[in-house]
């Protein structure tokens, strides 16, 4: 766990540090630059701008209509609410797990650290299936018991929150662990020696020191949670106005005939895309603050 170079979370974000440029300019340099730019244009930049164009291909009015549909409004509200709870849970547990992994030693610590990364490599469909097998009211291991106790997990928001929490679980932790490792315990110990309780030391010393890393992880987590599709599809049933999130709405509308439906799909997709890009921009501007801490 010593380095974060090869963990998935590090694969998410641009690294820190000085950029080394080579002095001479050669044809090779130009060719490489061109190839890379062309690759990115054809794979990402052009397609994304086309979605924006397609959304407004019939003008502004259909877009505004789409935004006012009750299903659409509900879907986004549901998405936001599910994402909110998932991120909250992941942040709370993320802080606890990060502290445990960095500050303490206990049997199974290394295994736990490795397992934390699992959600990033597992297919969302597998996640959905896994939760279904355990929490389904009909056939699940403990789902039946839960349902008779009144708690429906699958085909209801709790299951959706769990699925979303699953897929974005490592994100906060992988941001906090390096920072916690780096800042060490000196300041906290000083605070304790001055009479602060562990909770006070945490709130007044640790939390401020990790706040940018924490914010970074939360924003990443939020972006991931808002965009979850496959896992939520299995555990939610995708019933409009009940358990249909924004991503499920995009799928449904696109597959229905009619230009209004297509525009609605594109509108919802564009909003999701804008939120994602906004999150990226926020996160990119947070990095220098994180570095200077």
């Amino acid at each position, binding site marked *: 766990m010593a*380095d974060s170079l090869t963990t998935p979370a590090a694969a998410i974000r641009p690294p820190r540090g000085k950029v080394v440029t*080579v002095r001479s300019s050669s044809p090779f340099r130009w060719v490489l630059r061109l190839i890379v730019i062309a690759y990115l244009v054809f794979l990402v930049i052009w397609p994304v701008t086309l979605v924006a164009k397609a959304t407004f291909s019939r003008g502004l009015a259909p877009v505004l209509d789409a935004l006012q549909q009750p299903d659409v409004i509900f879907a986004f509200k549901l998405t936001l609410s599910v994402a909110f709870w998932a991120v909250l849970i992941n942040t709370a547990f993320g802080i606890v797990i990060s502290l*445990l992994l960095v500050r303490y030693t206990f049997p199974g610590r290394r295994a736990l650290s490795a397992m934390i*990364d699992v959600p990033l490599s597992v297919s969302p469909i597998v996640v959905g299936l896994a939760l279904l097998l355990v929490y389904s009211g009909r056939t699940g291991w403990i789902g039946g018991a839960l349902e008779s106790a009144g708690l429906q997990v699958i085909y209801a928001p709790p299951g959706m929150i769990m699925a979303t929490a699953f897929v974005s679980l490592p994100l906060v932790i992988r941001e906090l662990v390096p920072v916690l490792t780096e800042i060490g315990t000196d300041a906290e110990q000083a605070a304790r020696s001055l009479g602060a309780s562990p909770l006070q030391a945490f709130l007044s010393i640790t939390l401020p020191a990790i706040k940018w890393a924490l914010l970074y992880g939360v924003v990443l987590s939020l972006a*991931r949670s808002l965009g979850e599709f496959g896992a939520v599809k299995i555990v939610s049933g995708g019933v409009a106005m009940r358990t249909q999130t924004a991503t499920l709405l*995009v799928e449904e509308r696109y597959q229905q005939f009619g230009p209004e439906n297509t525009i609605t799909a594109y509108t919802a997709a564009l909003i999701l895309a804008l939120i994602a*890009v906004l999150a990226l921009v926020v996160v990119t501007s947070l990095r220098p603050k994180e570095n200077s801490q």
Partner: protein
Amino acid sequence: MTSSAVTPLIERPDDAPPPSPGGRRRRRRATDLTPVAGLGLGITMLWFSLLVLIPLLAVLVQASEGGWQAYWEALTSPQTAAALRLTVSQALLVTLVNIVMGTAIAWVLVRDRFWGKQFLEVVIDIPFALPTIVAGLVLLSLYGPSSPLGVDWANTRVAVFLAFLFVTLPFVVRTVQPVLIELEPEVEEAAASLGASRLTTFRTIILPALAPAITSGAALSFARGISEYGSLVLLSGNLPYSTEVASVRILSYVEGDKLTEAAAVASILLVVALVVIVVLDIISRRVARHG
């Protein structure tokens, strides 16, 4: 309270481990769990088990429900076997492309300087932040029926390739970038002073230094590729035997209430994910050792 054989010199705090009968006591270290930490660990382990461990275990258990015979049959049934072949082959192909392009992109981002480079940094991360269903729409707009390029690759294998390529874009780039940044320029100058051309320096000095990072990125890219679902829904049409991938097979089984078969295919994806984790762990350990 204590046996006469072991008389502590100082009052033991209540939460210290009691001495063993032989009289040897384990010294408390600063990083041992305090009661509060122990409780925290217990609660988080409980939640982690309920959310991750037990469900994933359930997949493996369900997969073995019908014994080896049923397991093997589920995997080798024609449609499923085709889906698995497609998934693995396309993921491998995409990983190879990523190894080359990812390294090239990282190189340009680190070593080159031009207006707009910061913009490209954000672009690299878009596939990671974008919801997969939206990624499908995005690719559809350039490579589908209404493509300005005049191609229509929707519902073809190329669509699968493109979808995988899109979602795995950041992985090799982001693992290679930090290593490239850390490379000392003096090492390349040393190679030059010893007579190595730029190409030889790249081949013998830079590439070996990047190898662990490239491998990690490739492993992540492969795992991500075979897991992909959302972008394929709209883009590939999920046509059996031609554009249907493993994750779509699983969903079909689930919708048909064939949970054991679903779990069988899922177990393959799960095993690959676990192998990737182990590989990454080994690599990071080796890198830490060799400095």
